[in-house]
């Protein structure tokens, strides 16, 4: 018996499974990537639609009397998918990623609706309509969601002493750029202690293997008014890829500066870190160090009062 013969009175030819299939497609490809209305709701909607339509599809292409078996098998496989890390990984390799989330089991009752739906009779239909419905639902079930992962890259990070107060300036530093050709550091200077003159005299990065790299800031002399914030960009150009491949993945950044005429040395350990080969798309970047509250100069009138 051919597949088309089996779907002669197809349970797929009804607005319910067709709507579920359409929702599955729209949700997987539009709503999930946009996390709309939020990631949890979009995830559950896919599970609800998939759980309803999958036993219907399998019944349509096999035998009507297997309907109960398909409903039960779908429930067992879904539970394994959501509870067993090994099974989830194996399915992920074949079919694309799927969240390992036990709360998704709350969607299982929809299988009862699917079973009830499969118990009703289904009107015969022409071969073209049957084939179109089967193809559409099969594509909706087989199609994986839009990509949820992207390549991650090693990134240099300051691991300590990133926010010291140096004389009249509250400072902060973070690696804003990192790649094969080096790293770029942002240095934030905040004159919280009144007007502050800052001179950046030298900057260097010493890698763990002893290599010394000079950094050249894009601004060297700054006259900061009280509460003024300035950002200085400090690139360190070196063969970061070669260092990575050699296993040289740490170093110390040293900045020599004078704040309010007082010489200071600022040392920060740094590491080159790769968290994973792939990361979730649209992950929010880490925040910059928080700024202190800075009260501007009190106006003369206020002082008189």
């Amino acid at each position, binding site marked *: 018996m051919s597949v088309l013969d089996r779907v002669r009175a197809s349970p797929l030819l009804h607005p319910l499974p067709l709507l579920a299939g359409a929702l599955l497609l729209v949700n997987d490809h539009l709503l999930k990537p946009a996390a709309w209305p939020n990631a949890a709701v979009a995830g559950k909607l896919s599970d609800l639609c998939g759980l309803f339509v999958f036993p219907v599809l399998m019944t349509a292409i096999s035998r009507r009397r297997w309907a109960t078996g398909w409903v039960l098998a779908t429930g067992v496989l879904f539970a394994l998918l959501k509870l067993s890390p090994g099974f989830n990984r194996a399915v*992920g*390799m*074949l*079919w*694309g*990623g799927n969240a390992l989330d036990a709360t998704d089991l709350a969607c299982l009752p929809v299988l009862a609706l699917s079973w009830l739906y499969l118990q009703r009779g289904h009107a015969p239909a022409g071969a073209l309509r049957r084939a179109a419905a089967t193809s559409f639902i099969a594509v909706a079930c087989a199609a*994986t*969601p*839009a*990509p*949820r*992962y*992207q*390549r991650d*890259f*090693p*990134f240099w990070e300051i691991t300590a002493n990133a926010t010291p107060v140096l004389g009249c300036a509250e400072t902060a530093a*973070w690696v*804003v*750029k*990192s*790649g*094969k*050709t*080096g*790293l*770029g550091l*942002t240095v*934030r200077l905040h004159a919280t202690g009144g007007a502050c003159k800052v001179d950046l005299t030298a900057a260097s990065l010493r890698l763990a293997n002893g290599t010394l790299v000079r950094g050249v800031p*894009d601004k060297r002399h700054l006259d900061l008014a009280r509460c003024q914030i300035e*950002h200085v*960009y400090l*690139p*360190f*150009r070196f063969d*970061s*890829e070669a260092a*990575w*491949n050699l296993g040289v993945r740490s170093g110390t950044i040293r900045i020599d500066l004078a704040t309010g005429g007082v010489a200071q040395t600022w040392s920060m350990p740094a590491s*080159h870190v*790769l968290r994973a*080969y*792939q990361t979730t798309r649209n992950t929010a*970047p*880490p*925040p*910059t160090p928080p700024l202190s509250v800075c009260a501007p100069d009190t106006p003369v009138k206020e002082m008189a009062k």
Partner: protein
Amino acid sequence: MRRAIVLLSLAACHHHRDTNAPGISDIEVPPADRTAAHVDPEDPGENMLAVIPGVLAAGGIRKDSPHALGEFGPEVSIVRGSSPRSHSEDGFFIYPMTGIGGALGWSALRVNGGDADLGPLYAEIYRVDEGVAAGGGWSWNPADGDHGPQLFVTSLGFYLRGRYLFDDGGEITAGLQIKVPVVWVWSR
């Protein structure tokens, strides 16, 4: 059976290496937003080494009578290649879009005019470009010592092969290859 074949064809696995892992970033240029916390590096793409065992099944015609021909056999290939964009873990397949490779295969079962015989072994080298592979090699049948050149082109699991055996003459076969790539991936 058909579903088993479909599942088998999707059962790819891959392994990440962290060689060359840093991305591309113009270090000399300050970020457009001076207050930015992080500027994502650009994707340099990936290198890959794929070991791809599988089976091939085809039908075709040969010059000598009986003309109809069917064959089935195993093949294993190794491809060293790259892709301009890094893969996503969501993807079904990870396979070099560009590269060069070699294959060893055996047209193990040949059905010709109702007779089933062992077919020739073969070795091929080929080039992959935009997912289409083309190449050629030499086939040799240890049963009767017959041998000769062969050419092939393949894409999306389908292949077309022309073979000329000096005793048996020419033949053309077209069919399906089901392969399970095992891929080692590292950054360009």
